[in-house]
């Protein structure tokens, strides 16, 4: 997820960076901007200077006193270097925010800077901050991008809920088996597991192999979600069977147990996809 967002951000950067990467003439910014423009261009043209922390620190300070578009260009250059090559995320975000708030910044650059801020926050895992930023500056962002940010927050909430559900399932099943052990009925659970194991193995192998093969068959396909889900479903089903064999036999208890076990399998599937391939989740609007 983060990788794709960063890659998307980089692609957008390549497309949108042109207005501020291309050298401009001093005439465009007025005569007062000629000296700053020359200094900025000198830094741009020299790879060593463009990656030198001291030079960039000085440029960031100098840019505050520069006029018009050259100020915006300098701040974008500093932000790009700090966020990319120098990994100074906080400073980079500050520079981007200056660009967003700069009345002299053209709309394209301003929108690009705002999107970069949200992308960096998402890449850092600060989803709440990213969603708040996107919501607050929604007028500068693509509505779909804002919705995507909200979706990331919602997805993380579901992920947390899924983990809690799995933990609850483990506690309930362990509690039931513990009580069975206390009354000497654990053998009943083991017998039930032995009976169910062949079917569970067949099911897990079918899901892993058939699904994994189909998923791997197409270009850029990845069968890992199916392989891992098959491996995860097997112990869950066996644990469900063991719990069912020693648990209460009343109808409400059986229905509740079935619901918990089914939800746990779905939760495990969600956790797997969240960890290894969230693009599957996007297909369902999650």
């Amino acid at each position: 997820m983060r990788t794709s967002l960063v890659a998307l951000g980089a692609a957008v950067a390549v497309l949108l960076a042109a207005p501020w990467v291309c050298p401009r003439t001093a005439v465009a910014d007025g005569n007062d901007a000629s000296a700053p423009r020359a200094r900025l261009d000198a830094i741009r043209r020299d790879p060593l200077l463009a990656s030198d922390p001291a030079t960039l620190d000085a440029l960031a300070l100098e840019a505050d006193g520069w006029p018009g578009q050259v100020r915006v260009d300098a701040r974008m250059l500093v932000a790009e270097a700090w966020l990319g090559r120098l990994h100074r995320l906080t400073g980079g975000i500050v520079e981007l925010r200056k660009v967003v708030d700069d009345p002299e910044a053209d709309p394209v650059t301003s929108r690009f800077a705002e999107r970069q801020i949200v992308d960096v926050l998402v890449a850092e895992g600060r989803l709440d901050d990213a969603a708040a930023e996107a919501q607050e500056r929604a007028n500068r962002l693509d509505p779909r991008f804002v919705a995507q940010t909200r979706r990331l927050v919602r997805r993380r909430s579901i992920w947390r809920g899924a983990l809690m559900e799995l933990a609850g399932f483990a506690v309930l099943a362990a509690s039931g088996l513990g009580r069975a052990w206390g009354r000497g009925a654990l053998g009943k659970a083991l017998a039930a597991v032995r009976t169910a194991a062949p079917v569970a193995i067949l099911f897990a192998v079918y899901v892993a192999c058939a699904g994994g093969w189909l998923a791997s068959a197409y270009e850029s396909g990845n069968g890992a979600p199916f392989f891992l889900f098959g491996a995860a479903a097997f112990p869950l089903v066996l644990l469900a069977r063991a719990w069912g064999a020693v648990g209460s036999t009343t109808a409400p208890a059986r229905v509740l147990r079935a619901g918990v076990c089914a939800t746990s399998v779905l939760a495990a599937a969600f956790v797997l996809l969240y960890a290894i391939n969230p693009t599957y989740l996007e297909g369902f609007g999650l």
Partner: protein
Amino acid sequence: VSRERPIEPEHVQRVRLGHGANCSSIGSVIDTLFATAAVGAAVFAAVAAALKEEDVRVVGQPDREREPQQPREP
């Protein structure tokens, strides 16, 4: 020598709406396939957890006539 012709609007006969609607690749339904597998596993787990095991109970009186008779002591 192959000549590639650009696709013009009149060449498009039909456009379907929906998720992966115009893609015939398995890749367009792979997420649905995974969801199906997940739901199937969930149902399997639910059935496994809800199965009821009944104790074997012997009803009725044992048939005395079919019981092997004890040899009488001389």
